């Protein structure tokens, strides 16, 4: 899906559908299977397996304590799959375009800039984690509980240092809030059908499945 506006709206609709009911989540999962690169969106994100594993652990805990862990697992897993899809499809500068298109050159620009910088920060963070792993490997150090604290300290420190440098850079370039951007969006042939198809899971989530069959009769 190339049009960032349609993609965002689609992901919001599908996330709401998934959150509301298991039927909505299952339908959203089918949408994910049909309209996205599927499993490749997970492999592109270094944190995907961690978050999916964490969700599975929480679901197991809910199930053991007598709650509906299966429902939680299905709904949250689909929401995560949609999030990984949205993350893997984004292009640099897209959030800035989107925010300016939505909220204008003052609030929109500031929100978009913050979103872009946060996403950039996430990429830097995954690079930093990779770097620390290599450093441990080169020094023949075994990553373990003891190494988590200094490693986390280094990550936080480098993020703060980067934030400070970026703030200085923005100030030097004369940034005082707001800015000029002319948003541009491209749309592929399949974007609109994919967006329209995303409404079905929402209908399924809002209306009980039985009612839909009654309506069809």
């Amino acid at each position, binding site marked *: 899906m190339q049009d960032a506006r349609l993609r965002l709206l689609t992901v919001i609709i599908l996330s709401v559908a998934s959150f509301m009911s298991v039927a909505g989540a299952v339908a959203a999962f089918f949408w994910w299977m049909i309209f996205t690169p599927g499993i490749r969106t997970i492999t592109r994100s270094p944190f995907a397996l961690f978050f999916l594993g964490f969700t599975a652990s929480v679901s197991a805990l809910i199930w053991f304590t007598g709650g509906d862990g299966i429902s939680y697992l299905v709904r949250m897993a689909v929401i995560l799959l949609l999030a990984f899809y949205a993350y893997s499809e984004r292009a640099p500068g897209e959030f800035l375009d989107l925010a300016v298109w939505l909220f204008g050159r003052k609030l929109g620009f500031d929100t978009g800039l913050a979103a872009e910088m946060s996403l950039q920060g996430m990429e830097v963070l995954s690079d930093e984690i990779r770097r620390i792993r290599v450093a441990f490997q080169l020094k023949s150090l075994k990553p373990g509980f003891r190494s988590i604290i*200094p490693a986390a300290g280094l990550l936080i420190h480098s993020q703060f240092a980067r934030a400070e440098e970026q703030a200085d850079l923005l100030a030097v370039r004369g940034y005082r809030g707001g800015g000029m951007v002319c948003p541009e969006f491209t749309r592929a042939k399949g974007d609109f059908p994919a967006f329209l198809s995303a409404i079905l899971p929402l209908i399924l989530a809002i209306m009980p499945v039985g009612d839909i069959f009654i309506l069809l009769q």
Partner: protein
Amino acid sequence: MELEFMDVLVERDRFLIRGSGRFTPGTHLVSGRVGSGKTTLAMIAAGLGKPDRGSVRRQGIGSAMLSMQFPEQHLTGSTLESEIASWHLDPDPVLALAGLSGREKDDPFSLSRGELKRLHLACIFSHPFDLLILDEPFSALDCREKMATADRIGSIRAGITIIFTHENQHLPRVDHLWEIREGALVSLGGVPEALVGWKNKPAVLAELHKRGVYPKNLSTADILEAACRTHD
């Protein structure tokens, strides 16, 4: 002891680097322009990267180390003391070697990149390695430190030392010269014979070449000796 690149090829979009050759004990200089693929080859030589085609064969190499271009890429400690300890070294002599005595409790990020590079190189040079790969060891250093680093590299007598660099002013004495030309790693042979065929040689060497003078090696002392020889 030997490291061999066997028809190694790495391809990324428009970038392509290929190479074959044997690195035997001694000091090897791999020269290449910025973006020519030096870091890619260094990572592959260190076993931290995989080529798309071909392989790297190691024989008789026990310990190996890659010194990455940016010293902060090696950091795992939150103080200079713990950083040096992470290299399994005693902090005091290393701090003295790096010119940072008395700063053992300092945060590594409070150092300038040049100071951090000095500390990192001091850790690297305090260990003997069978294979030592130095990716841009002179970056972030001033002239004096570049010369000191070149001397330290030149004084390594054991194992295989490979220097990947675009530096062309301050270099150590080397045994073998390599050059990256149009996406290919080319072995130019032993020094000084190899200096004749060095395509992107340093300006001072090119000038001496014009006069028909060749230094015995690449250290500052060798270049000065050759330059003075022209006045005889």
